């Protein structure tokens, strides 16, 4: 298994890189330590307020609850925006499986909010080539998965007049490839091994992949969209485990005469069994999938969601729930819009006046609503719509 930069430090330290996320000693991920080590910044309250002022609408749930908690140069983006200079969004997905769970949707839900709130265009990269190289899947299978995942992504509600979705197998070439080569020339083999932990046994496909994920950070990679706009800044919403790619990109950018891309990073979505558990595609009970019915959701939450409540009702009423480890409350903080209600639940549950069952029921309702809405939107996505989103076409209204 690849390890991150901490390979050279204590072996039991937490590991966070694009291919592995493990906490120290089976505990929780220490985000403060992570921010420290990666060198990014905390997304503080004043920045969230600034977002509210600039966009004229309440900030997204994920900002209010600290789900997106770290950034690099997000304040630069806001400074430029205030002066009337727009930016574009870049996010992506590695289509390794057909089954998408709620954790997968988090970055897309947030990106949709950013698109709507700031009225900016978005490019979405489907790294079908990466999955082909890292998971033992055929090229054709990865391309198929990319299209299937595209449908779920589209169902999150992106505006087709401002969104370009592309798969690496389809799009790499032309100006995009030119940028890939420019980037590759700036990163030594030693550097990439240091960042991503490649070994002598890893095939060269893996070693050559990072420039592909870096290239979309530069507007010249999309001449059909941003020709003549070399000055356009890029904001990348992603989970914090993707930071290594963009550390590398930010290092390269000034050498190529481009702006450094800014990042806004989220924490990890916990598995049902708890923060220490791993959400894995092989264990369907570790997550809520977008294809789950209301019954399945209710069942999964009741049976598998790790509870911070006490063993008995009496004990619970006396001691209250342990909100630190309670998964239902954690999930509610992601998906329950109403701040006041969440506060109320935390207070009552923490004091032992509310029982685990009630919290789980509320969660089941909230998640069912989210999943149902997604499913309905997904049903409306046609093959033609996917083709249209993925067509290399100009987006004349992308800043409207």
């Amino acid at each position, binding site marked *: 298994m690849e390890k991150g930069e901490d390979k050279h430090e204590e072996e039991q330290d937490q590991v966070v890189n694009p291919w592995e996320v493990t906490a120290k000693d089976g505990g929780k991920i220490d985000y403060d330590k992570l921010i420290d080590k990666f060198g990014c910044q905390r997304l503080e309250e004043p920045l969230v307020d600034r977002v509210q002022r600039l966009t004229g609408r309440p900030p997204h749930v994920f900002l209010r609850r600290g789900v997106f908690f770290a950034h690099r140069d997000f304040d630069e983006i806001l400074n430029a925006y205030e002066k009337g200079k727009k930016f574009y969004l870049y996010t992506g997905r590695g289509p390794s499986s057909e089954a998408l769970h709620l954790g997968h949707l988090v970055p897309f839900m947030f990106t949709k909010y950013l698109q*709507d709130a700031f009225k900016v265009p978005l490019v979405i990269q489907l790294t079908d080539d990466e999955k082909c190289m890292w998971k033992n899947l055929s090229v054709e299978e990865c391309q198929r998965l990319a299209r299937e995942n595209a449908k779920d992504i*589209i169902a999150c*509600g*992106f*505006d*087709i*007049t401002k969104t370009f979705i592309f798969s690496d197998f389809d799009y790499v070439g032309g100006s995009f490839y030119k940028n890939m080569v420019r980037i590759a020339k700036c990163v030594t083999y030693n550097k990439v091994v240091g960042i991503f932990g490649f070994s002598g046994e890893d095939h060269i496909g893996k070693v050559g992949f990072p420039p592909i994920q870096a290239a979309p950070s530069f507007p010249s990679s999309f001449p059909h969209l941003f020709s003549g706009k070399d000055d356009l800044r890029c904001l990348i919403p992603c989970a914090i485990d993707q930071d290594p790619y963009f550390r590398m990109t930010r290092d390269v950018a000034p050498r190529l005469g481009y702006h450094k891309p800014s990042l806004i990073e989220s924490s990890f979505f916990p598995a049902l069994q708890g923060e220490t558990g791993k959400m894995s595609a092989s264990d369907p009970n570790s997550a809520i999938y977008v294809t789950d019915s209301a019954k399945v959701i209710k069942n999964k939450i009741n049976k598998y969601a790790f509870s911070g409540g006490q063993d008995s009702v009496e004990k619970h009423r006396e001691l209250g729930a342990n909100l630190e480890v309670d998964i239902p409350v954690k999930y509610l903080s992601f998906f329950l819009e109403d701040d006041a209600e969440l506060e109320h639940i935390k207070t009552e549950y923490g004091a032992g006046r509310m029982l685990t069952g009630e919290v789980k029921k509320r969660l089941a309702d909230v998640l069912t609503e989210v999943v149902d*809405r997604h499913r*309905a*939107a997904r049903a*409306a996505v*046609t093959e*033609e*719509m996917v*083709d*249209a*989103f993925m*067509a290399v*076409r100009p987006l004349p*209204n992308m800043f*409207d």
Partner: protein
Amino acid sequence: MGFTKEQLLARLKELGIKFEQYDHPAVLTVEAQAKYVGDKGGGLSKNLFLKDKKSRFYIVSALADTKVDLKVLSQRLGLGKGGIRMAPEEALGQLLQVPLGCVTPFALINESARYVSLLLDKEFKTQPHCFFHPLSNETSISVQASDLDKFLKSIGREPSYVDLEANPPVGKDQPPDLAILVPSGTIDIPDAPENSTSSQAVSEKSIPVQKKCTPASVKSAKPSSADPNAKDKPNNAAPQPNAFVESRLFVDEILKKTTELLLSEISTLTEDVAKQEALAKSVRKHLAPDLQNLTVMFKNTAYTQGFYAGSNCQPKRL
């Protein structure tokens, strides 16, 4: 006050529409009508006044020998099987303002028939002229199909010609081909049991199902979503032009109209302004996210269809 036969005929003359007029004793059926004008050439029309489960009304005007299967029509309109039936008599009087046996496309001249959808038999175009009642059972006039179109356009209607005998499959991958002809506003006849508010909310939801709707029909749907039978309400300002570009504004417009209507309806139930406000707020809060999603999907669908059409467009033939 509904138009009279004389007023209609005067209007036709104004429009320069040629017609032959035949007066006869009152007739209630096509057979009876045939006795008087059956030998004059051209096609006799049979006219059905129909209603669906959501109180939307349709006139189906066809040549007398065209077979009209209501079950098939219902499916093609996207109403499911058996979603459409003959409209009740009182609707005839209230909406079309014509007597029994006198259903005719010309009834659309009445303001009350604003939301009645008209389906015309494409076979009309094969006839040199066709017979319709000019708002009276005691007369039949023969007009050319093109002149009927002229009349319809003059009252702001686009003539929709349909192959009424066709029976295309309707399923998951084949959307109902006539769905576009379903009116977007529902009509509340005072003695009908449905609440106009709930049917309005429902009619908004039905929009995304009709995948063939174009943005143009969205534009026309917006003003008509106001309840025609609403009690005195302040005159609503026209939607901002950006309402069609940004989904949030679009949804705001819809919610504004919905809550205004809701408030005017419930103001009869409770005087408590605070309660009214709370209710309006609750409607907005609960509907907004769903409507946002529906709106974005609608926009994406429309764009996709345009994109498909554009990319398959043939160059102009010289």
